[in-house]
């Protein structure tokens, strides 16, 4: 057993009062869950704390909250794990002088609070899920017997299918923070669940629909927050990248946000220069120097460009000329790979890891195992 202090955010919008923090101390095993602690506090000290929960087995998706800044299911987050997290993304040693580890529990973000730890999933999460036609549209004619789907395809879509609709990814989406209209990670992962399913008849229509939405396919900044937030390994951002790849490369779908133009301009730019030549990328992302849309954007960006010139960030020579040239070998790679009739991809979710990567991104992280005794 160990002592944990829970700081719980209390708020009742209907009361007209401001939010407040309540602090309770519990004595529980480090491998009991944050939900166990909250339910114990409700039983022993204050039954009025609002939290939504049901299965307590990480399958109903009801008890999404933020614990020390990180979203997750209260029912499958051990107290010691939550306590070890710092605000932000990672690990933080307990501060000196703390009697017991503190776990700050807040409602999820990007959704209005109904009461205490309960957010309005209908207003945001479910609305966005409904936005992407979340059901299979059969190819016609429907076969008399079952559809035969290649094993790889099925395993691929089981990743987005693992979603339990808890809203943790929506809570942490950094694009949605500034653009609440963004379709968002959960709904886009759901969209890929059907675009990646060979039984679905409307891949192109689904992608066209998302490409026509200013807040659709190209509002994601690649911030990876949803990947870290998801308690089920859905990796919504990876699904968004798949949607973009299929829309841009397989269907040649032009979108309203210049996402297609930007992607193709970027590839062309690196093929030519080897490393990025920013002035060209800017113009080409808007459809090329002579495109009226590009003209407008370039004019609006002129003060920024002039400041950059004035400060010596670029010179007229580097802005207009092309100081770097791609080595011929690099150009060849672009041509050879881009011209293959079929894209060759590795999906680690399907293939798995051959064995533990040693010394990959972090030689050190891979060579040490996490301490089991960290309560």
């Amino acid at each position, binding site marked *: 057993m160990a002592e944990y202090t829970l700081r719980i955010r209390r708020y009742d919008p209907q009361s007209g009062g401001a939010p407040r923090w309540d602090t309770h101390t519990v004595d529980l095993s480090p491998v009991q869950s944050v939900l166990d602690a909250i339910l114990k506090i409700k039983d022993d000290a204050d039954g009025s704390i609002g939290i939504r929960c049901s299965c307590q087995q990480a399958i109903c998706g009801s008890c999404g909250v933020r614990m020390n800044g990180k979203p997750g299911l209260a029912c499958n987050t051990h107290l010691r794990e939550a306590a070890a997290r710092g605000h932000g993304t990672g690990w933080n040693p307990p501060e000196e002088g703390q009697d017991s580890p503190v776990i700050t529990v807040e409602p999820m973000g990007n959704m209005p609070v109904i009461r205490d730890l309960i957010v309005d999933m209908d207003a945001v999460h479910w609305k966005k899920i409904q936005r992407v036609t979340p059901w299979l549209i059969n190819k016609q004619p429907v076969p008399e017997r079952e559809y035969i789907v290649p094993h790889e395809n099925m395993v691929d879509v089981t990743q987005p299918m693992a979603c339990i609709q808890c809203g943790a990814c929506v809570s942490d989406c950094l694009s949605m923070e500034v653009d609440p209209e963004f379709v968002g990670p959960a709904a886009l992962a759901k969209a890929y669940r059907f675009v990646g399913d060979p039984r679905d008849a409307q891949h192109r229509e689904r992608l066209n629909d998302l490409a026509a939405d200013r807040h659709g396919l190209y509002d994601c900044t690649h911030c990876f927050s949803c990947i870290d937030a998801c308690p089920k390994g859905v990796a919504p951002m990876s699904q968004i990248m798949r949607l973009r790849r299929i829309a841009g490369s397989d269907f040649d779908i032009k979108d309203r946000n210049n996402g297609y133009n*930007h992607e193709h301009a970027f590839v062309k730019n690196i093929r030519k220069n080897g490393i990025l030549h920013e002035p060209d990328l800017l113009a080409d992302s808007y459809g090329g120097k002579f495109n009226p849309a590009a003209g407008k954007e370039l004019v609006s960006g002129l003060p920024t460009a002039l400041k950059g010139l004035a400060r010596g960030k670029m010179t007229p020579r580097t802005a207009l000329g092309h100081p770097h040239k791609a080595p011929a070998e690099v150009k060849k790679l672009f041509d050879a790979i881009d011209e293959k009739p079929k894209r060759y991809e590795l999906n680690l979710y399907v293939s798995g890891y051959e064995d533990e990567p040693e010394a990959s991104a972090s030689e050190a992280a891979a060579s040490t195992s996490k301490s089991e005794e960290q309560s």
Partner: protein
Amino acid sequence: MKVAYWPGCVSRGFTPELHGSMAKVAPLLDIELIELDRAACCGAGVIAEHNQELADTLNARTFALAQRTDGELMMNICSTCQGAQSECQERLDANSEYREHVNGNLTDEGLRYERGLTNKNFLWLLVENIGLDALKAKVKRPLTDLRVGPFYGCYIIRPAERLGVDEEHPRDRYLHQVIDAIGGTVIDYAGVYKCCGFPIITMNKEASLKQAGRHLGDAIDAEADCLVVPCPLCHLNLDLQQPAAAKVAGRELGMPVLHLPQLVGLALGLSPKELGMNKHIIKPTKVIDWSASVVAAAPA
């Protein structure tokens, strides 16, 4: 130590002061840089979005070039490169058949990537290979009273598992630790782990600049003197685009943003000019009240 050095694109494009300051700081930290000048762009996630095999091949080529040098490891100075390259490397290291296929693309050039390269951002190398104590010992001009807000950028901290962020290696605290080691004061503010918005600047400018403007405003509200970034793309949105972000945010900003090698260079005794700070849109020397800091002794 000798490292195969990948400077990335933007440090040789719109943020030349980053490339320059790294070159000045490296010898002071006994780092010998072997620049990979024939390597190509990491793809910044965009090429992978277009064609995964192409992005993985370009990065496998870079890794192979790095392995041909006698550097102990590969070092980058751009979080975006770190993130994009780590993602490609994860695939290459996880599956030998795929690796062989990608290596097949490189045979014409006589290159081959062997699994298990170590590729570290300067920030990681600074803390893990040079060490905070060794860094401290080299400080000539502690950044006393300089209030620095860390801005990590996404690609160097998420996803935590792929990037090796854990209790043993709290890479999401390293900027905090470096600021502290060179005598500065760490300012915690809401934007520390947020996204600068740069990747969507051409796709949804308003949302992009709103992100930059909000984090800069939060740092101002927390009374930071400046921010420090390990990613030149963050620098583009936070510094180059700052006047535009101020318009979107509807408030005055004026927050200097330093590249990591610049901040370290200041502490190691280099002058703001040597570190290229005159190239910033928000000139640190004009904005920071150096008089309260030992940095005041430095010529502007």
